[in-house]
């Protein structure tokens, strides 16, 4: 089993490839591989959206229009109307753009040879920060700065307990962008590490067979088939996770917006 002996080194090499490496320029002022794919996925998203807008009609024709229509319906019904309530139209553009941006980024990363724009903590932290500022701004617009700060704590609690609950709510409020960023980043990073490890196992077991075809090498390459099967299953799960994480991010932002708009909670 010399294949397993070589695995730790290969995995260390794999993990080191996931840190940001500048494609050109330096790390401070330049384009890392993640930023490059971020730009690519933004262009893909723009092309898709403009192609959809050009075909906009009362009755959607063709697969492309229908898929887009279903996705937008899903966001406006399940996400906005059910969670936010009557004022959903104001927040629909923001939530839809967050959802589609993350979705396209995640799906681009699943294609072999490409990296997800959301696979680095910097991108997800920026996204989470934008969402954080957005729902704070919504809260301040609704209640005023002091009113929003007061509405963090529930009404009708006696004095000393009031302050304690307000502090706890403030901490949970400040933790929201961190959890949003870390959740998306960890899902993308861990998913790609797992896929990469199984791809490594396949190559390590199949390597002797490619160099020389003997009976023992064929027998030794049998685990590679099993690993390839697992890799395919994980690949399918990763596509699913890419969609679910975009959905979770957008739904959480919707819940936070609703919380900021509501009259105390």
């Amino acid at each position, binding site marked *: 089993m010399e294949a397993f002996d070589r695995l730790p080194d290969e995995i260390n090499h794999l*993990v080191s490839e996931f840190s940001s490496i500048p494609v050109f320029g330096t790390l401070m002022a330049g384009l890392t591989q993640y930023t490059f794919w971020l730009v690519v996925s933004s262009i893909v998203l723009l092309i898709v959206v403009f192609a959809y807008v050009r075909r906009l009609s009362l009755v959607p024709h063709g697969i492309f229009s229908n898929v887009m229509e279903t996705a937008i319906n899903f966001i406006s019904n399940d996400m906005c109307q059910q969670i936010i309530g009557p004022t959903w139209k104001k927040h629909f553009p923001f939530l839809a753009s967050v959802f589609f941006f993350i979705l396209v980024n995640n799906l681009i990363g699943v294609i072999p040879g490409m990296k997800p724009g959301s696979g680095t903590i910097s991108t997800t932290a920026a996204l989470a920060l934008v969402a954080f500022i957005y729902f704070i701004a919504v809260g301040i617009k609704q209640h005023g700065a002091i009113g929003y700060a007061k509405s963090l704590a529930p009404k009708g609690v006696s004095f000393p307990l009031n302050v304690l609950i307000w502090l706890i709510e403030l901490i949970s409020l400040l933790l929201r962008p961190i959890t949003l960023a*870390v959740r998306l980043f*960890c*899902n993308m*990073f*861990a998913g790609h590490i797992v896929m990469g490890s199984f791809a490594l196992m396949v190559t390590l077991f199949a390597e002797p067979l490619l160099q020389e075809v003997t009976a023992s090498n064929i027998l030794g390459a049998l685990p590679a088939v099993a690993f390839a099967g697992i890799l395919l299953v994980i690949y399918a799960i990763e596509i699913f996770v890419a969609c*679910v*994480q975009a*959905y*979770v991010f957008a739904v959480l932002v919707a819940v936070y917006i609703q919380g900021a708009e509501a009259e105390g909670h």
Partner: protein
Amino acid sequence: MGVIGYGLGVIGAGLAIGLAAYGVAQAMARQPEVQDRVFTVFIMGAAFAEALALIGFVVALVVR
């Protein structure tokens, strides 16, 4: 050490996803017509619980 820590951390996430699946299976068996809505809630809950396990995985890999 990292591997052992990750193994300990994943116990909680495993229990959480198991509990969520238990609740969903029971809800669907009792009331099959709410299947769609319950499934969405289950996916959300599983995603939250799974995120904790994944944080452990990433920390075990990145922090040495």
